[in-house]
């Protein structure tokens, strides 16, 4: 009798879980579609920041012709050899979830040109302040020939940026994402230069 009751409870749960899963897969499908549309917008943004005009008609042909795209895990690297520029689209773990960055560099002079935080879910009021323009402006023209350091006590070396106070973990994660991205890009660029 008890076994029968438990079985029916189990069956109910299995059915309900399956229904929920189907429903969520459907919603997720919708979201992925929208995300793909945003991918194209991202490429347009990169194209414009490289200093070009976006022409709706020729963009989809022009972009792949002049920009070489490489992928490494969650990170994408857009190299625009004509102007020694590159865009690094980096995703890495923050304190609560992934931090998604878009970083423009001048790889001949080894400086960062501009930095954008595309998405993050850090603590509002603390870690989330990495999205603020005042913080991001510090990266403009930053020399990354050593490694980038996000620190609370600057020693005066190049490549240093003031951390967000109260957000040690987020600052550390951001630093790791940036440096790993730059390293990977350098190794790609070196491989290409050799042959």
């Amino acid at each position, binding site marked *: 009798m008890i076994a029968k*009751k*438990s079985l*029916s*409870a189990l069956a*109910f*749960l299995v059915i*309900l*879980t399956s229904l*929920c899963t189907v*429903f*969520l897969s459907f*919603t*997720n499908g*919708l*979201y992925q579609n*929208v995300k793909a549309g945003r991918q194209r917008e991202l490429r347009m943004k990169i194209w414009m920041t490289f200093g070009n005009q976006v022409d709706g008609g020729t963009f989809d042909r022009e972009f792949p012709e002049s920009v070489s795209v490489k992928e490494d895990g969650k990170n994408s690297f857009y190299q625009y050899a004509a102007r020694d520029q590159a865009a690094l689209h980096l995703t890495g773990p923050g304190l*609560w*979830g992934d931090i998604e960055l878009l970083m423009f560099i001048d790889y001949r002079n080894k400086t960062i040109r501009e930095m954008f935080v595309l*998405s*993050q*879910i*850090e*603590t*509002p*009021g603390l870690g*989330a302040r990495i*999205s603020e323009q005042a913080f991001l402006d510090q990266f403009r023209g930053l020399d990354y020939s050593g490694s980038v350091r996000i620190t609370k006590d600057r020693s005066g070396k190049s490549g240093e940026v003031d951390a967000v106070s109260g957000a040690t973990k987020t600052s550390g994660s951001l630093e790791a994402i940036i440096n790993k991205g730059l390293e990977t890009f350098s190794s790609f660029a070196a491989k290409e230069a050799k042959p």
Partner: protein
Amino acid sequence: MSGSGIRSSKAFATFVENIWSSNPIFVMVLGVCSSLAVTTMLANALVMGLSVTFVLCVSSLLISLVRKLIPEQVRLIVFMLIISTFVITVDLILRILLPDVSKALGPYIGLIITNCNLMGRAEAYAIKNPPGRSVLDSLGTGLGYTLVLLILGFMRELLASGSLFGVVLLRGWTSWNLANIAPGAFFLLASVIIVFNMLKRKKKTAVVTADKPRQR
């Protein structure tokens, strides 16, 4: 006609009660974590409040509809499944429609799953009552929650940046940064609860003096 009138008026009384005299935050002090975290901006507070209200209503409706089918020993797991499904749906919908607000709210939309009000309404009301009344009950709780979030969001955004919904209203306002950070949120919530309790006490004494013969 009169029978349904009485029933609906009773349901309506629950609805009003949930907004005011048993408000989820002021009186029961449930779901305080999210209400402190997302109220730095009025717009975020509004979206958060409406999301909670939506999840409350939809999950209550569904639970109430299948309340006779739910096996008693697994009912909490069933609540959790239904609630989390709708919370994830809301999260995805916000990412599609309002990507900026969704970024600002961060993990707190996902954390609606752990908001005690949802499990509370399911266990205390939706499992025992018909769909219409359950939805009304949840709507009251959700609106009560939204009301408090809006009050806090209004005060915090105004004090911290002199703006409302991102529109600067007070030019040359000296930003009161305390309102933007967690301790300020605690102080403000406590002050609002004090004012609320004073109002409530005043109202009660007024009712007592006016309706003395009706007292039980």
